[in-house]
């Protein structure tokens, strides 16, 4: 891989960005934010993305998927982040497919993969149990039933299913309309990624035994991609705004103070892209981790890269989000231009699946530098 895109990738990227530019308008974001408060998602956007094949991106062709890899998922996530798209891509198109492919038995795959590929399953997730989550997680098995509570459940609006990492190891997948399931929507900072608290009382659930960390790693890469896409959008908007806004008789883009802030953002952001693509490709190259075996070197490097790209994108993202907002002056603080949608997407992503400190410590562990 020479860090460029293949012709197929370029075409895919172009059509996805075209679709997003047309559909994810400021009004659409606003409407999705309102709907999210009621627990509903943007069904029309999801349907359009399904037509493009996004839900089945990572699934084998036999299951109705495209048989592509995480490099392609990261490319999509960059575009989704760039447009601050209100869509459950991470849970439904990345975490759930990978969890089933890596940890599911043939019956589970047969049951769910086609529904995932067809976009009929929308899967909320809670992985705090293995990612340093600060919310409650008391999930426990009672035979094939699951009880306890967990929060936050992420991408909860409009979700049909939930994917959960369990404190005792492994994961569980369950239908949210099953008996014993109580879902309480909670307003989230990023109103385009709605949250919920989930309480289970002997709810039927499918066991996905084994090491859930490769699923977590893939999620981290995709979150990093989204953050970097969103940060790029903020930089682009800041440069454009500075080129129009006049103060003291000049466009503010002509002041060194503003130029240098934009240059700093670009200097931090620009080198991230190749790192991201490499980290995503490394996930594709890493062998399936068999449960209870020590990961080999290649696997450890893929882990390290996933942790590091997440941590680095979180740090760069925060700086860019702050400074791009500052370049907009008061306008950046209002919702008039919609800039806070990107700001909050970046802020929220930082907290999901482990913040930078957590990811760096896991990166050190993957390299044998920490116990």
């Amino acid at each position, binding site marked *: 891989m020479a860090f460029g895109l293949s012709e197929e990738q370029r075409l895919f990227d172009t059509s996805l960005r075209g679709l997003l530019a047309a559909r994810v308008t400021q009004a659409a974001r606003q409407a999705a934010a309102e709907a999210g408060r009621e627990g509903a998602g943007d069904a029309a956007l999801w349907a359009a993305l399904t037509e493009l094949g996004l839900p089945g991106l990572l699934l084998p062709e036999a299951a109705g998927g495209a048989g592509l890899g995480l490099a392609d998922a990261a490319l999509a996530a960059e575009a989704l982040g760039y447009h601050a798209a209100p869509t459950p891509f991470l849970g439904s198109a990345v975490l759930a497919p990978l969890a089933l492919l890596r940890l599911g038995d043939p019956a589970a795959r047969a049951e769910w993969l086609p529904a995932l590929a067809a976009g009929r399953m929308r899967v909320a997730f809670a992985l*705090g149990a293995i*990612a*340093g*989550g*600060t*919310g*409650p997680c008391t999930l426990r098995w009672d035979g094939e039933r699951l009880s306890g509570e967990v*929060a*936050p459940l*992420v991408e909860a609006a409009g979700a049909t299913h939930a994917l959960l990492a369990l404190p005792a190891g492994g994961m569980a997948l369950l239908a949210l309309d099953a008996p014993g399931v109580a879902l309480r929507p*909670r*307003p*989230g*900072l*990023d109103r385009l990624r709605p*949250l919920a608290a989930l309480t289970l009382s002997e709810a039927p659930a499918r066991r996905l035994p084994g090491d859930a960390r490769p699923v977590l790693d893939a999620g981290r890469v995709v979150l990093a991609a989204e953050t970097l896409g969103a940060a790029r959008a903020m930089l682009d908007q800041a440069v454009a705004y500075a080129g129009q806004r*006049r*103060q*003291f*008789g*000049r466009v503010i883009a002509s*002041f060194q*103070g*503003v130029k240098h*802030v934009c240059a700093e953002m670009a200097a931090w952001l620009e080198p991230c892209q190749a790192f991201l693509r490499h980290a995503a490709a490394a996930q594709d190259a890493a062998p399936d981790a068999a449960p209870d075996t020590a990961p080999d070197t290649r696997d450890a490097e893929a882990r390290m890269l996933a942790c590091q790209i997440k941590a680095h994108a979180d740090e760069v993202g*925060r700086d860019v989000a*702050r400074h791009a*907002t*500052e370049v907009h*002056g*008061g306008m*950046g*603080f*209002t*919702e*008039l231009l919609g*800039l*806070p949608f990107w*700001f*909050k997407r970046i*802020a*929220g992503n*930082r*907290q*999901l699946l482990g*913040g*930078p*400190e*957590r990811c760096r*410590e896991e990166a050190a562990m993957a390299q044998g530098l920490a116990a």
Partner: protein
Amino acid sequence: MDLGLSERHRALQAAARDFIARFGHLSPPVGGGGGRKRPDRKALDWQALLIEHGFAARAVPRRYGGYGAEPDVFEAAIITEEFNRAGISLGIQGQGIRMLVPTLLEVGTEAQRERWIGPTIRGEVIWAQGYSEPEAGSDLAALRTQARLEDGQFIVNGQKIWTSSAHFADMMFLLCRTEPDRPKHLGISYLLLSMDSPGIEVRPLPTMTGHATFNEVFFTDVRVPADQIVLGRGEGWRVANVTLKHERMLLGDASKLMHRLHRLQALLAETRVEGRPLLASPVWRDRLMRLQGEVLAAKYHQMRLLGEAARGEESGLGLLVVKYYGSTLAWRLAALAVDALGEAGLVYDPHDDLAEDDAATAWYADWMYDLGLIIGGGSSNIQKNIIAERGLGMPREPKLQGGA
């Protein structure tokens, strides 16, 4: 440590502690009240009690309804510190009390003082500030809202933005252009107008915090009696600078930082990941300690500035750096809290009464609001220009060819 307090100041400190012990239970919740919504009965009663005991409107003369003490910046700092430490409300903090009252005391007419200071400090009259405009963010000289004098009344037309309490304020102090022919700064006047006047439209301005804090205000032929001008025509810039001086010497910035640091430390002690408090993790502790060092600098620096003000000395550079240093530090304190809250903290549920917000929402709201403060009232770039030019004596931006 109380290094440096005189006997008189120690006595005030003791009196404040005694007052808090006796009456603290009557305090409205901190964060609610002042600035975000109209004070309720409880807040008004508390305000009256504070004035009676000299913990609010302390240096406002008795004839205008204040407590009548000599102005003393240390006293104000001591009161702020004791109340903040105890988590007790310092009373109503709106822009009327913090900015307009000292301005009227310094440059208002006797009639203006008698009419407005009393009701304002009691919380009966709430003021909004009408400074910023969409096209004149950091550049006040560019403001466009106009007022022309007609039959003994100013007729105001234009638009203001960032007016924080316009949706419930009774009055506004307004900067507008009354002398269109004079050079930029010299054409501005400072008017006091009623928010009930016909022709005023207030639209809430949605911001990233989700709190209903700011507004846009539109003026269409709004009539203001000619005697409701402070100083005189074209003197608005001078009045605004008087107000600004009081804003700059405003207490509580370092106190706010100290208070936030304590909340942050408590948060790190409470928040557990895998059963272990974050404060027990060296990485988180080191981040906290680093911020503590920066907050300590702000704290003692403020005491130095207070001392200089008390001695009548010019603080120069020392005063000019306060806003930039304090606002970026406040943001970074909140940023560490936001990091500590982790995934669970992403639940964000803002209420119009800030006191009703849960802890995570409050931290996130602080974090975003502080970014607004870094931006507001002159961006970081403007602050750095001021520090470099006025504080360090570096040259001003050279004039452009052709100007603009």
